[in-house]
């Protein structure tokens, strides 16, 4: 445990026991340092939307805040900061995650895709187009999370990963309305655009 005796505070480590396990290699590998404001920072390098990004971060910084506050990629939203709403969904190494629930320093070497990496106003991803076409949003605050989640979710169906509502596990899974609704249920939309989101996803799933 002596490696742990850096200036990582006990409070920081207690945030999540799961985080403690995966944080270890990153901390051992690199020296912590003090910033001018007296904060302990650690370096971390990961790829965001195809670009390598190197940051020095307070180890308590979530991936969500690293994106929003440090890289100024504010397309990823904070709705709850507690893994309860899905607004912060990004795609890490092909899997969708709630970026508020993991620390940025856990992601050394990872490939992160955010809404900004899927498409831009002049060059929209087909799902972004479909959301506009079907009016799959209202306030727009859950929207980047819905879209990132949907992109990865369609990948899960393609890979044959079953869900709670999958009837026959021996058959190929398909993107039925109920499968999509079930799998998207971690992304809350208080504006209630669910039916339109489902229509937008169906459009893209059908190709």
């Amino acid at each position, binding site marked *: 445990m002596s490696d742990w005796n850096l200036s990582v505070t006990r409070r920081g480590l207690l945030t999540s026991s799961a985080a403690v396990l995966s944080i270890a290699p990153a901390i051992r590998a690199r020296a912590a340092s003090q910033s001018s*404001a007296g*904060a302990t920072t650690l370096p971390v390098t990961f790829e965001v939307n195809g670009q390598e990004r190197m940051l020095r971060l307070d180890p308590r910084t979530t991936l969500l805040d690293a994106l929003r506050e440090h890289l100024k990629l504010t397309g*990823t939203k904070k*709705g709850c900061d507690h893994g309860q709403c899905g607004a912060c969904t990004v795609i890490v190494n092909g899997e969708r995650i709630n970026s508020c629930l993991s620390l940025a320093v856990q992601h050394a070497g990872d490939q992160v895709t955010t809404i900004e990496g899927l498409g831009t106003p002049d060059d929209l991803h087909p799902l972004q187009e479909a959301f506009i*076409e079907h009016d799959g949003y*209202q*306030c727009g605050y859950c929207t980047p999370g819905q879209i990132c989640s949907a992109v990865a979710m369609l990948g899960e169906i393609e890979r044959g990963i079953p869900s709670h509502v999958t009837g026959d596990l021996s058959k190929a899974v398909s993107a039925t309305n109920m499968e999509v609704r079930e799998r998207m249920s971690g*992304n809350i939309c*208080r504006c*209630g655009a669910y039916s339109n989101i489902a229509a937008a996803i169906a459009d893209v799933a059908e190709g």
Partner: protein
Amino acid sequence: MKYEAPVGKTIFDDAKIVGKSTRRIDGPLKTSGMAPYAYERHDVASGQVYGYIVGSAIAKGRIASMDLEEARSAPGVLAVIAATETDPLGSSNFNTAPLFGGPEITHYHQAIACVVAETFEQARAAAALIRTTYDRDEGEYSLSRTVEQAASDTSKIVSENVVRNGDFESAFAAAAVQIDQTYTTPDESHAMMEPFATIAAWEGDKLTLWTSNQMIAWGRAAMASILRMPKENIRLDSPYLGGGFGGKLWVRVDAVLAALAAKAAGRPVKIMMQRALTYNNATHRHATIQRVRIGADKNGKIAAIAHECWSGNLTGGMDENGAAQTRALYAGPDNLTASYLTELDLPEANAMRAPGEAPGHLAIEVAMDELAEQLGMDPIELRILNEPETLPSNPSIKFSDRHLVECLRVGAESFGWANRKSRPGTVREGRWMVGMGVAAGYRGALIMKSGARVSIDARGKISVETDMTDIGTGSYTIIAQTAAECMGVALEDVSVDLGDSRSPVSAGSGGQWGAASSTAGVYAACVELRRMVTEKFGYDPETASFADGMVRDANVVRALSEAGPLSAEDTMTYGDFQKEYDMGTYASHFAEVAVDAYTGEVRIRRMLAVCDAGRILNPLTARSQVIGAMVMAAGAALTEELAVDKRFGFFVNHDMAGYEVPVHADIGQQSVIFLDTLDGVIAPLKAKGVGELGICGPGAAIANAIYNATGVRVRDYPITVDKLIAEMPDVA
């Protein structure tokens, strides 16, 4: 411009753009993550630092001591603002509970401190180092208790709003068929996805707030009175909001603390209220207890109808008038509608989407279902039989334009109502008990004065500036449609700038008045701009036409761009003639549910809304408003409830896991039909709002469908499994 009388034909009656399904002009920004919400303005005010709010751990009493030293010396901390070191701030007309300052605590999670640090992590860590002790007072946290007490002690009723016609009591007593039931609805939370958030920056004595607020002019006035400074020195900017539903009608403590903290730290400060604080710190919808009595003859003709609603709030707060729609819905010469307010020490209750009417329909529209069953009548026919000629609560008032009967008939046809079995509990599909329900919907159509500035540049492009907000309602798009139609240009040639207090004051977003009011204001400014263009060209303003970027008069034609740059500002106001009318919006709502015979789990299979709301400015986004409201109504019917801790006086389930709003899997097929109606009384575009109409009725339709499926009538919302299962028929 003043709207003095109902209009005849207008340019909107031959519209090419207004009234057509139109994709949101802000869509590419929202879907690509480029639309900037309040907390995301890295582009404004350099050197931003972070504020973190500390909430009170008691509901009532005062702070005895606060130890701030450890927090102040924590790494990165720039300032700590504490209630004990701040004099109570000014009050505003827009808040009941004081937002900040002084040791008195009036509700749980009231803000008591704000820590400002270089980083969010430092501010959060330092906030946890503040040690506070309290002197706790006893409080009253039970609505059922205050209402019980009020039965014998009328002083417990702190305000009442009673409307009587005729002699309800005698007519009810004499009625052949009677319904007398009590319904309860719980406290609810707006739970909008974007928490309250503000960035504040000072430049000398001038304050700018990049914030998330539905009502810019109200917010500016409130900040001026809270901070006791001239409103001319305050700017609010709120171009995008991540939802509001009434929760962001008023400035909240994020804005106040950001302003104080920015002053204390000498740096711009950004604060997003932590999600866990939002439920108790900010406002919520009141719980209600509602008694409905209806007396009818054997044929279903209503003779007497009474709807009384009790709610509770902090001292000086407003009521939740669940009886409001009953003043307009059904004929019945002897009627009584009343809202009574008692005092509670829970957090401040205030407007949430269709205040009054949303919970009100959960009572009256179930009572109508109960009456229909007692009469052995179809619930749609019962409603149609009791359609009033004029406003039942004040028969001298006419309806401006009302097609409720058509809503019911069209809905019945489209939904397949004829297939409904009137005897409950008779349709079974495997483990599922299936039923259908219907409800009528009424929500007042409010209209507010609203202003805008419309400009033409030298390229003939149009820009619109107004402090109107788009809270997901589609304001950007309908305003662009209106300006494009009036000025005769393509939608792509219009840009819209919203939410900035430097722009003309608009109606803002609330009470479903936004669409009708803000487009009327844009129309007024366009009329003035057209007049200026014709004057510049020497054309006759009466005969000149604007189309395809050109202005024509008799045999002459010039490009609109030749008139630019040119700018006009105006505000639409309304004459007293509207007082002769009840301006309302109407709907029929249908639901089909399946209830698991073994577990009592309710699944919504289908929902339909048929809406009568005048001209639908943009059917695409209006439909979204309605389906979104139906989702929120489903939450109110089935899952949403702020659970009150009646010992300590707070909402226990104050996060997004505990306060259950509907998710994707909860919602089945949704359909919306808009009747093709026009209301010339309300405004020149003849349009009314739909955003609140959509939440008035679907919950009752679901409750009635559950009864039709199971034969179980649950009158205490939400209709959760525990309440259903005890009454469900035995599974064979």
